């Protein structure tokens, strides 16, 4: 099994986000981390390789800082990495990001491509499915289990409200992986050491420029959402807060 895992670097969950001068994106001087769903996708790829042998390749698109995501993946056990390195990749829509990935891997032959089910920044939940369509491959989304079969794979899809479904499909295929499909591993010291010698192929914007076009959608403005609810802040030392909350529960919400 040769598996490609698409990964993304996103602002840390508790990062304080500030708008840039044009109000169309955030100021980039924040701390970043790996998009959590992508970490589950990587873990699943490593587990599939442990079962069926093969290779795990990780790919990301973003500026120099995004290499951290690849380094961590290599330290956890990925075999090699592809870095589409340029600031402008951050602003691509899902359609163009998928096109850039497709162009960067045109000489590779993967059996499966995994993505996380969505990113914590844009939250499109689209790039994996678009990539499948561009490659002409079948896909399945929100996957909780993957088994190899004689004809391809059998995957367990999560549906809404506690429902599931098994789907059989041929390879190659694209799967978007649900968070919680597995338990994430930590990188070992030896893994971190070995990662330094693993290959990272850099792809410049120029190499994939001809594949991508103008974005098909545009963020006109980004802003802090207007509150629709009036929120009452309750302050003070913990004991006092507890008393005030109980007063609200009893006299305003009438649930006590």
């Amino acid at each position, binding site marked *: 099994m040769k598996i490609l895992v698409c990964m993304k670097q996103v602002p840390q969950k508790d990062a304080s986000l500030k708008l840039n001068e044009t109000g169309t994106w955030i100021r980039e001087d924040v701390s970043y981390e790996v998009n959590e769903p992508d970490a589950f996708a990587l873990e699943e790829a490593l587990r599939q390789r442990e079962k069926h042998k093969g290779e795990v390749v990780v790919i990301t698109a973003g500026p120099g800082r995004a290499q951290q995501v690849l380094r961590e993946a290599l330290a956890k056990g990925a075999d090699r990495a592809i870095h589409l390195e340029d600031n402008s990749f951050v602003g691509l829509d899902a359609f163009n990001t998928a096109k850039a990935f497709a162009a960067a891997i045109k000489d590779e032959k993967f059996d499966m491509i995994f993505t996380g089910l969505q990113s914590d920044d844009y939250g499109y939940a689209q790039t994996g499915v678009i990539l499948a369509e561009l490659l002409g491959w079948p896909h399945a*989304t929100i996957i909780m289990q993957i088994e190899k079969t004689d004809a391809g794979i059998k995957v367990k899809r999560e549906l809404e409200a506690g429902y599931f479904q098994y789907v059989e499909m041929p390879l190659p295929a694209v799967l978007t992986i649900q968070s919680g499909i597995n338990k994430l591993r930590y990188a070992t010291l030896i893994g971190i050491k070995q990662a330094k010698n693993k290959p990272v192929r850099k792809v410049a914007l120029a190499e994939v420029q001809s594949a991508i076009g103008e974005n098909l959608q545009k963020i006109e403005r980004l802003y802090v959402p207007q509150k629709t*609810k009036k929120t009452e802040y309750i302050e003070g030392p913990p004991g006092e807060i507890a008393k005030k909350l109980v007063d*609200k529960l009893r006299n305003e919400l009438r649930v006590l």
Partner: protein
Amino acid sequence: MSDTILVIVEQREGKLNRVSWETITAGQAIAAATGWTLEAAVAGAGPGGIATEIAGKKLAKVYAVDSPKLEPYTPDAFAASLKQFITAKQPKLVLMPHTYQVRDFVPKLATAMGRTVISDCIGFKHENGKLLFTRQMFQGKLSADVSFTSEAPWFATFQNGAFRGDQAEAGASAAPVETVNVQIAEPVIRTKPQEVFKEAKQAVDLTQAELIVAVGRGIKEQKNIELAKQLADALGAELAASRPICDSGWLPMDRQVGSSGQTVAPKLYLALGISGAIQHIVGMKGARSIIAINKDSEAPIFEIADYAVVGNLFDIVPPLTEEVKKAKG
């Protein structure tokens, strides 16, 4: 001919997904703002019954996009049939609910047509003749107004709860229903879906709970769940959690609230250490009142909270439990 908005409602196994009414409400609102014509469609194997069901709403026309190959659902068959239909009809705007099923096929459909989807929208704006779709970004910390820069047809999906389904306006008379048969060649469908099933009998029904105490990542360790449980017991509330807590096995999956868990509407939802990611919010924003305790003052949960406590839940929950016990005497 005027521009057309096409709402594609969702059916699963011959039943209309109720969230579709919300998309019809959204379509009616956009039609009112733009003056465009509103039509609807449903795709399936013999979906005529559902087409008739929605034809009672204020719509110019309803299409039943019909093929035996549309049952059971596959992304290949849905994308192929809707591509045929939409290419023939050329609507300006195509709207769908942002369900797991739509997420599974709509990016493929749009890509096959060289178009894009603005996904998971919570509203729209019509400014100086330009349509903007509002969607949440960065897990709800920020919102964005997004426009289409490509040619029509444009695709957009709406988040569950973005519009009120019960506000979908009825028509003066039933809209005409037209059946459109689509041809799907056998090799198009590459995946073989099996029966839909439920993992285990859901032991806990949170949908009927009046009071819910819910925990999120801020609880930090499994042993700390006990703190929340004591508060829930004192209140006589059900204990619930956000997805990461159930993924970690700290609470069973049937206590999960959110898009992949249960959708609840209690009198009180007390959120402990829950940041309020969109996937969680969609499952609990219908609560009559929300109290949120979180140490991060920018946590999106505070956007929808009635009462907010910015602070350490480990300091506040134990005295709160004691006060509740005292109050209950």
